[in-house]
């Protein structure tokens, strides 16, 4: 495993991402990872606070399009995330905090897909969230925050 991670990190692509003398490599990939974060977590949190009762004049149905933005964000972050992982596979791949980040994202995705089915799965979305939808919204708020926190701590945890 260790050997494989080292190979990844020292591959042409890995070395290009981490050390090419251009802003288009590591800096831009990292920047796009933040753009993707905003496109996933921003709409998710808007939907979550709406389901928890804020801005109740807004029909929940109007937020159906949020998932399209989140999907684009997720595509951006999966791609940039893989590139960043390859470039630091040996340094970061085995850190426990990285697994916390991945687990938070996996749980957040499960919660998001259940929330989508619970709220938008049966025709026009109801404007008063069911207790189940409210619980899922709370879980989504917390899990995305956990993913951001673990992601940031990857720069600090040894």
């Amino acid at each position: 495993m260790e050997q494989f991670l080292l190979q990844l990190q020292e591959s042409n692509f890995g070395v290009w991402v981490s050390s090419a003398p251009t802003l288009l490599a590591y800096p831009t990939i990292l920047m796009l990872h933040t753009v993707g974060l905003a496109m996933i977590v921003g709409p998710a949190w808007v939907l979550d606070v709406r389901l928890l009762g804020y801005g109740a004049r807004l029909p929940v149905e109007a937020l159906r399009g949020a998932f399209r933005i989140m999907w684009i964000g997720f595509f951006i972050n999966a791609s940039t995330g893989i590139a960043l992982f390859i470039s630091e596979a040996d340094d970061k791949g085995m850190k426990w905090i990285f697994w916390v980040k991945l687990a938070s994202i996996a749980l957040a995705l499960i919660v998001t897909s259940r929330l989508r089915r619970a709220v938008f799965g049966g025709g026009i979305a109801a404007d008063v969230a069911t207790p189940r939808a409210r619980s899922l919204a709370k879980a989504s708020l917390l899990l995305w925050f956990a993913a951001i926190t673990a992601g940031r701590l990857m720069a600090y945890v040894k």
Partner: protein
Amino acid sequence: MFLGFASWLHKTPISVAFQHQVAWLWPTCETLHFAGLALLLGVAGMFDLRLLGFMKRVPISVVKDFMPWALVGFSLNLLTGVIFVVSEPAQYFGNPTWWLKVTFLIIAGLNAFIFETAYGRRAAALPAGEDTPTALKIIAGVSLISWAGVLWAGRMLPFLGAGVGAGL
């Protein structure tokens, strides 16, 4: 001039206090800065998309009900941003990319101010389903571009222009 101010600020008790707490203060503030960014851009982005003609059946004033959350995100980022600058002023004042970030912030702020003062009432009175006037679409476009600029410059800070003010 700013670097003189930076070196003065760096010696103030509050800056020194921040510097001593850096081990937990920076990761905490950085995390909150990213969370605030998502909240601010999520809400402001939704409002801009509405001005651009998405979710047309929803009155603009209804989408505006979410603005307090954008303000929560912005306040969080202003507070944590000030903590970064106060603890390491030269790192920011000496970096042209930081000034570019501030410029984008000012553009975003002026744009929001122009919207509120010149178009706020017109936007609120716009019937649901109606196409938004071009002026509002321009404001929405400027908002999206300037917030993207804030994000771009903020994330590029360590890579572009860093070190200009180093050593202070």
